[in-house]
């Protein structure tokens, strides 16, 4: 007792006097934990699990096998969840609600970070142990909640503008459009060609689902507006946001975007583009490889998304690795997360499964660019990208966005009214 008091006294004196680090004193007790990462201590070694959606590429087991060969005593088991994001999220939440230790490392969609962090379902991570500086900045932002790191960026994704090079060339357009008005002007030129008979100008993902939130956020950001600010407060009842929504709603009205595009998800748009119904398409990089195998092969290229007065901003996709708060063997888990999100692993994921990496260098790698010609454009897209609203109640926020945007697109509400109502709904949702 006496000894402890004295030591504490010594410590505090030392701290006060010399400004020593906590570690210098804390090492005697168990107080060292959390010096670098809030209250979390990463202790325990042994087998763990990695939980992610169904892996269709076959590359995840390959990387896990490599880890297992190197760490025979700390084996990782791959738990595959269903393909669709909603069921993945639901199962992870169930696991957390029951405080089960069945899941260790979670592959989280970038928009779930805030929700999982706020519920304390995942642990805060030591920032210094991950090479965040070598990663694209917007990607790192998706892994943070209130300025603290809660996940390790594993893969990214950004929107690209696919366009028909053959038609643009024939119409005398030499470079892809950088603004919306350039795009519609290019369309007008292309539509005069006999080959463009029956074609529509542009489409994205406008069905009432998560894709609509992505496209709405892109339109607003590309017009200079924001959906939510840095503190998660909504600002959609603004002239900038209105310009963004007007571009979408007005384009559906005047036929720049075909009427049927309000039923499009990623695949519908891809098929329409490939079968020659669209001149421009907003979609993810995964389309590139598939379109190369279709009859559109050799007739298309990609560009950054256009905006109101210049290049636009994409929404960010991708997945981050997070550590379940209720898991065991967290020391192993942390090592595995570092390994799995390393530049080396990211390179493998890019080469074998064309998953966009979070690391800047890989986008400039000559052999990779040869394999995936869209990489430089994707890098531009991600660097200018804005994450979707980083709020705890993301589910409510995205529903509200879908509800009002869809009403504006289908013409049942004016864009002014839709944004006014949306601002209301979002304030209500983020106030909780």
């Amino acid at each position: 007792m006496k000894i402890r008091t004295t030591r504490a006294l010594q410590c505090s004196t030392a701290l006060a006097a010399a400004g020593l680090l906590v570690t210098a004193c804390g090492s005697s007790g168990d107080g060292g934990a959390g010096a670098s990462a809030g209250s979390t201590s990463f202790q325990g070694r042994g087998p763990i699990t990695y939980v992610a959606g169904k892996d269709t590429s076959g590359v995840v087991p390959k990387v896990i096998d490599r880890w297992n060969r190197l760490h025979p005593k700390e084996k990782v088991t791959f738990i595959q969840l269903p393909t669709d994001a909603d069921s993945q999220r639901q199962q992870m939440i169930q696991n957390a609600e029951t405080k089960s230790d069945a899941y260790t490392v979670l592959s989280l969609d970038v928009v779930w970070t805030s929700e999982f962090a706020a519920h304390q379902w995942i642990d805060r991570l030591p920032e210094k142990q991950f090479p965040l500086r070598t990663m694209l900045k917007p990607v790192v932002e998706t892994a943070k909640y209130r300025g603290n790191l809660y996940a390790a960026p594993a893969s990214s994704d950004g929107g690209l503008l696919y366009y028909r090079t053959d038609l643009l060339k024939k119409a005398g357009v030499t470079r892809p459009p950088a603004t919306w008005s350039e795009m519609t002007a290019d369309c007008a030129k292309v539509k005069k060609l006999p080959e463009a008979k029956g074609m529509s100008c542009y489409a994205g993902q406008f069905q009432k689902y998560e894709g609509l939130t992505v496209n709405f956020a892109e339109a607003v950001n590309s017009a200079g507006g924001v959906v939510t600010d840095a503190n998660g407060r909504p600002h959609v009842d603004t002239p900038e946001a209105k310009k963004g929504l007007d571009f979408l709603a007005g384009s559906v009205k005047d036929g720049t975007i075909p009427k049927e595009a309000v039923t499009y998800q990623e695949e519908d748009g891809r098929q329409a583009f490939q079968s020659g119904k669209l001149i421009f398409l907003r979609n993810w990089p995964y389309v590139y490889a598939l379109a190369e195998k279709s009859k559109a092969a050799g007739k298309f290229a990609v560009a950054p998304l256009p905006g109101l007065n210049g290049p636009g901003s994409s929404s960010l996709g991708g997945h981050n690795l997070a550590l379940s708060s209720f898991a065991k063997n967290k020391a192993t888990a942390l090592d595995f997360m570092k390994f799995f999100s390393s530049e080396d692993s990211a390179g493998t994921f890019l080469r074998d499964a064309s998953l966009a990496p979070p690391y800047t260098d890989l986008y400039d790698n000559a052999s990779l660019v040869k394999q995936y010609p869209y990489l430089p454009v994707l890098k531009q897209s991600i660097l200018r990208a804005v994450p979707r609203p980083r709020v705890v109640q993301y589910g409510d926020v995205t529903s509200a966005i879908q509800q009002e945007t869809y009403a504006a697109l289908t013409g049942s509400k004016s864009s002014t009214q839709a944004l006014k109502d949306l601002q209301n709904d979002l304030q209500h949702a983020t106030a909780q």
Partner: protein
Amino acid sequence: MADIKIPPGTAADAPGPTALRPGRHSPPVGLRRQRARATAGSGRMAALLVSPTLLVLSIVVLYPTVMALKESLYGTKGLDPKTGFIRTTEPFVGLRNYGDIFGTGGDRFWNAFWNTTFFTVVTVGLETLIGVAMALIMHKAFRGRALVRAGILVPWAVPTAISALLWRWIFNSNGIANALVGHQILWTTEGFHAKVAVIIAEVWKTAPFIGLLVLAGLQVIPKEVYEAARIDGASALGQFWHITLPLVKPALLVAVLFRCLDALRMFDLPYILVGAQKNSVETLSMLAQNEASNVRFGPASAYAVLLFLYVLLIALAFVRVLGTDLAGDGGAAGKGAGRNRRVRVPALRRAEVTA
């Protein structure tokens, strides 16, 4: 044979009504023989035999229901603005979740309520018509009957989620449905056409179920009745109206009741075919799922409880109104006893068919 199958149910039921309804002094002739056997000893035996069933039922039915009721009295965990973390406990809010459903969420609730009711009435109505027609076709003796029967049953065998995906392709903007109609209807957007799409897919999938149950009912109608009718010179329509329909009614009613209860709980078909949060097709189950998926278990439970009550109400009303109306001997047999018997008989018949 019936004796071997029925005992637990009969023995449990037989002393029940008499004990609960002391006012009824003269049980009908048909039932007196059954009741005479039910002595005190066999009553205890019956209770013993039924107790495992009751135990299992209370674990799998009663407990979750009570838990849902309790959960519905709790609110949502709030966010602590200082730490940025969600609080760990759910506040007790009493009946506020219910108040919110009818207050702030009123529009959404009533929209979902009317959608659910509309779907139930329309789909079950159409299914009954088509199902009976299917049963009559399956019942006819002709070459290739087995093939037709198998063909008709295929939609019922397809899981709802899969059939929803199937119909989503059909109702795609460039799908077969639009090719047939001749102009582009955007089926999966908001609007009455979305309701139509759900109804078509639902009827396609479940009419065979009614067909199957009605077929079972048809097969127990003795041939002599039709022969007699033919001799009397009854037309085909007359035979259907005066013989087939009344005799097949018990089976048909069970089928319709089952379909009603299923349709009231409709979730996956509109969710996958048209999409989540589409006002035109949102059902009560979808509201509960939506709340639960946003980690608001209290309000989700409140929706679930309301849906449960609605389903229960419809089921009770169904058994009372249609059950009493159905049997010709209703007046003679006494209402309570008649009801019990009527519901059980077709249920057994169905069990035999599916087995």
